[in-house]
């Protein structure tokens, strides 16, 4: 608890409400300092950094092509020369498939959250700011919520076929309500604050107030929500691909790797265990970093 550092104002974003430049820089520096001071935040950030670098350069880093089969060496256990993490039922290199599978996971994660952000943030702003739109957007939110992501994915797969893109869209649509509700309540809160009221009284246009005051001050909560939404999307992709509703074989995906491994788990446990551990490490890193970020942004000091 670092209560001494807490600003006197009620929310994290209020301190920089009037775009007071030196104060804003001070706040950022304080957040970064808190993050660096938290070993869990540093470790999780390092893991994410490595994951992103590996994903970007995946084709060059992976020792083999993920689709290259070698029927002479199927089910080679981890440690076999040339195959650090072994091979699968078709003799494909597990490490290479993990690397390209993680890349696909991150792709779906980012694509899904981007979808949710692009639709959710403007609707949340509009819903919180314009009273006349609130009821309509709230019903839309309820409607989206009524379709769980797997059911959405089932529907999309039935209509448009299963693919990485459709899986990302299904997960993204399912995440829209979360962003709408979050941004809506943040907008409601900010709208009632003096500096925003002052700006409105001053004759500023709605779009200007939203763009200049509300959105910038809502970024920190949106950011935290995004760091929670990406790992959820990664888990979602794994589930969908596992069920055959996402990425289609032979394209590497951690989910499809597990689906194949299900048949051979007793014979080659590493093909079942490694993709799961990879997913868990990725998701855990995002979740821990998200928690740390929320704590660092919380002016009341950290909770955990």
């Amino acid at each position, binding site marked *: 608890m670092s209560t001494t550092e807490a600003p006197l104002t009620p929310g994290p974003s209020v301190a920089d409400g009037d775009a007071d430049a030196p104060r804003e820089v001070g706040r950022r520096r304080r957040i970064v300092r808190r993050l660096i001071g938290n070993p869990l935040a540093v470790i999780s950030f390092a893991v994410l950094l490595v994951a992103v670098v590996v994903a970007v350069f995946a084709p060059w880093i992976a020792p083999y092509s993920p689709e290259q089969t070698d029927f002479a060496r199927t089910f080679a256990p981890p440690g076999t020369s040339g195959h650090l993490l072994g091979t699968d039922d078709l003799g494909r290199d597990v490490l290479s498939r993990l690397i390209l599978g993680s890349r696909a996971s991150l792709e779906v994660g980012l694509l899904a959250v981007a979808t949710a952000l692009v639709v959710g943030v403007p609707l949340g702003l509009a819903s919180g700011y314009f009273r006349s739109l609130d009821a309509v957007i*709230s*019903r839309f939110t*309820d*409607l989206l*919520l*009524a*379709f*769980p*992501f*797997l*059911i959405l994915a*089932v*529907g999309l*797969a*039935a*209509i448009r076929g299963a693919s990485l893109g459709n899986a990302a869209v299904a997960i993204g649509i*399912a995440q829209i309500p979360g962003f709408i509700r979050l941004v809506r*309540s943040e907008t409601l809160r900010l709208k009632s604050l003096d500096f925003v009221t002052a700006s409105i009284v001053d004759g500023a246009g709605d779009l200007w107030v939203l763009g200049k005051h509300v959105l910038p001050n809502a970024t920190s909560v949106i950011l935290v929500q995004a760091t929670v939404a990406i*790992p959820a999307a990664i*888990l979602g992709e*794994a*589930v969908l691909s*596992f*069920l*055959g*509703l996402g990425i289609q074989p032979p394209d590497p995906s951690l989910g499809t790797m*597990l689906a194949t*491994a*299900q048949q051979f*788990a*007793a014979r080659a*446990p590493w093909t*079942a*265990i490694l*993709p*799961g551990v990879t*997913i*868990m490490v990725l*998701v*855990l890193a995002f*979740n*821990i970093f998200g*928690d740390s970020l929320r704590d660092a942004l919380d002016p009341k000091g950290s*909770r*955990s």
Partner: protein
Amino acid sequence: MRTYLLNRAWQSLLTLILATVVVFLGVRALPGDPALALAGEDRSPETLAAIRLQYGLDQSIPVQFGHFVNNILHGDLGTSIRTGTPVSSMMRTALPVTLQLAVFAIVLATIVGVGAGVVAAAKRGRPAEWVANGLALIGLSVPHFWLGLVAILYLAVATGLFPASGFVPFTENPVENLHHILLPVVILGTGLSAVIMRQTRSATLDALSADYVRTAKAKGLRPSAVIGRHALRNSLIVVVTIAGLQLGELISGAVVTEQIFGLPGFGKMTLDAVFQRDYPVIQAVVLVTATAYIAINFLVDLLYSLIDPRIRVGGEAA
């Protein structure tokens, strides 16, 4: 209170109507002739004509929608184009399996989650909190279907402690039923218990710093009594709220869990329908899920307003 409930009832009904429209239009959004899609493999002109007649596909969209709603209201959810079985009777066999799985998972998750959450809040800064927090984070991050695979591999296949798949109805053999459903319940409950734990911990911490708890402490109540009588009561609200919010996750989770453990429930029925392009079944599944979601969330709000008087007065359930 009455206006609030009437308002919520009206909102739920509106959402339900919208969801029905979406589901109805979904099948019409299929590329090509819906009759072809609904016919499946059998594409003889007679079958197509029969389907057009049955679904009223030759009539205008609003008339078709009227038919659609009318059929649903009479309990007719359509007929599987693969097996010819009415979807409603498929649901009757599949739903009890899923309901048992879901209800058991919620109960287990509540016991574990609330317990761990209260311990974490009460033992703040001590090892018990770290362990509880760490387990919750892992519970949130681990892919549950993978946990299921590992459980089958090591607890079922390797040791034979549990059956790897299958289901025995409770009415047939209660012991075998529990034996078959225990692993799936634990797997499905993991994520939910992690969510409940984190929320309970945070709610208990809030409650512990609230004025009324300070008063309770000041008047000399033992710490265990303070937590039990005052702080824990708040966790009831937490669990009810989460039950509503996490319902979508739970439904999705149940589908995957059933697939892994080979339980003949709602999820298996859904996936079979997708892979066989059994559109009437898919349509019914989506509609039933949405209806269940809307109904349960309405009930949650109802319950919520009974537990927390602030909602009745404040009007808006945040």
